[in-house]
């Protein structure tokens, strides 16, 4: 297995045309995952791992892939079991039998899920895959892959690729591991431009925001929103670090609730 990094700000090849703005760095990462899977040979493995710390914009990137590539998307949580995983997959794939959600043994459910994944040829994205590792469901996903040979993208925290090495069989089906990138100054410029609220931000302020965000695109957008709101209230058309002064901003080291 090879490990790849997408260089910051450079979109992966084959991006869908017609987007109003160039995607963020981590959208380029998931685009690369989708296209690597679509391009794989008949004998190549079909699972991709995308990992990165919380707040790096992995889930927004997943939403992008879901919207633009008709990917099936499932977000796992701590309550997941083998049965609930399959029931939720049936729901995500929109399956029914006689107008009711499919019932049956987990084997029957798995066969139905795998058949639909195989036939529709749509990629499946499983977000927060760390829960599957904690709940010992890695081999369940492995089996669904083996039955369907579908393109599957697994998204999780930064320690996930190392944890997955424990399952040698599983590891052999992973085409590539991609790492989400920390938020860059270029990302900050794009986000500020996208808000387009008649307020231009100086590079020194954006650079400061990138530094205090410590890689988290979530933190950066929260701070951008705060600045734009203040700007709208004060009637600014330009803001730099000096003008912002020591007004509060969300810092990486401050413990926040509900993030």
């Amino acid at each position, binding site marked *: 297995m090879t490990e790849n990094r997408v260089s910051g700000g450079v979109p992966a090849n084959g991006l869908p045309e017609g*987007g*109003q703005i160039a995607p963020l760095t981590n959208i380029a990462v998931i685009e690369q995952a989708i296209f690597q899977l679509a391009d794989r040979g008949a004998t190549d493995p079909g699972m991709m791992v995308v990992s990165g710390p919380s707040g790096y914009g992995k889930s927004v990137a997943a939403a992008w892939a879901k919207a633009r590539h008709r990917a099936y*998307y499932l977000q796992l949580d701590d309550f997941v079991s083998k049965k609930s995983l399959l029931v939720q997959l049936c729901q995500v794939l929109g399956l029914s039998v006689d107008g009711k959600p499919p019932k049956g043994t987990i084997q029957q459910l798995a066969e139905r899920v795998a058949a639909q994944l195989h036939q529709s040829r749509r990629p499946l994205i499983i*977000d927060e895959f760390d829960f599957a590792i904690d709940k010992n469901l890695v081999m369940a996903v492995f089996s669904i892959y083996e039955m369907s040979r579908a393109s599957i993208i697994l998204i999780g925290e930064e320690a996930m690729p190392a944890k997955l090495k424990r399952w040698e069989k599983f590891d052999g089906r992973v085409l590539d591991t991609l790492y989400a990138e920390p938020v860059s100054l270029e990302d900050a410029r794009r986000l500020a431009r*996208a808000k387009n609220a008649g307020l231009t931000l100086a590079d020194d302020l954006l650079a400061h925001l990138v530094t205090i965000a410590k890689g988290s695109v979530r933190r950066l957008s929260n701070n951008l929103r705060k600045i734009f709101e203040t700007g709208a209230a004060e009637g600014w058309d330009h803001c730099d670090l000096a003008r912002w002064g020591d007004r509060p901003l969300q810092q990486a080291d401050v413990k926040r609730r509900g993030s």
Partner: protein
Amino acid sequence: MSRQPAVVALAGGKSARQRVWEAIRLLSDVSDFLTDGSFLVDDLSRKSKVELPIVREYVRCLMAAGYLQWASTDDRGPVKNRYVLAKNNGVEAPRVRRDGSPVTQGRGTEAMWGAITALDTFTHAELAQIANVKPATAANYCGFLGRAGYLDLVRAGHGTGRGGIASVWRCALVHKHKPRAPMVTRLKVVYDPNVHAIVWQPGAADAADAAADQIDLGEVVE
């Protein structure tokens, strides 16, 4: 044990074409060795309870797109009225035109719903960017879904254009796992294909309020 239905279908409300597609999948299922998997247009019509002209039209579209083929028999050569499934696309009926090209109408809505159910909070501008639709389209969709109770308003916006603050939305939890996109129809009502029902229409809330008032006033509601 009773026999499990062999063919899995799409959950929720079904169009005529969807029912025909499900009939095709059902009649192509050869796992019980009772059929050879070929079928007539009449078989499809009978099985799906869809009228013949609609079935014929859809079969023509599917043939053009390569989902169906003529059934061939060894001794008599190709038979021009029997069909077999050539490309099984899963539970969703392929949306194709008469010339076999894919139908693009509705893709924007599907993309928006896909993004809505995966995102945490969002504004219409962010949604437009992710789903690749016009900001006005996204704003309109969010507005209708908000009125139908499908989106929670996290923070109300105010003003428009530069200096205006956009509303922040979040998908209501009970609707977050619905795979198919609710749509705003031409009559400006919100239809949810997952439950096959009109879930919002203009004036319905006012009428309900008026009825509630009547009960309070002791008037008879018939």
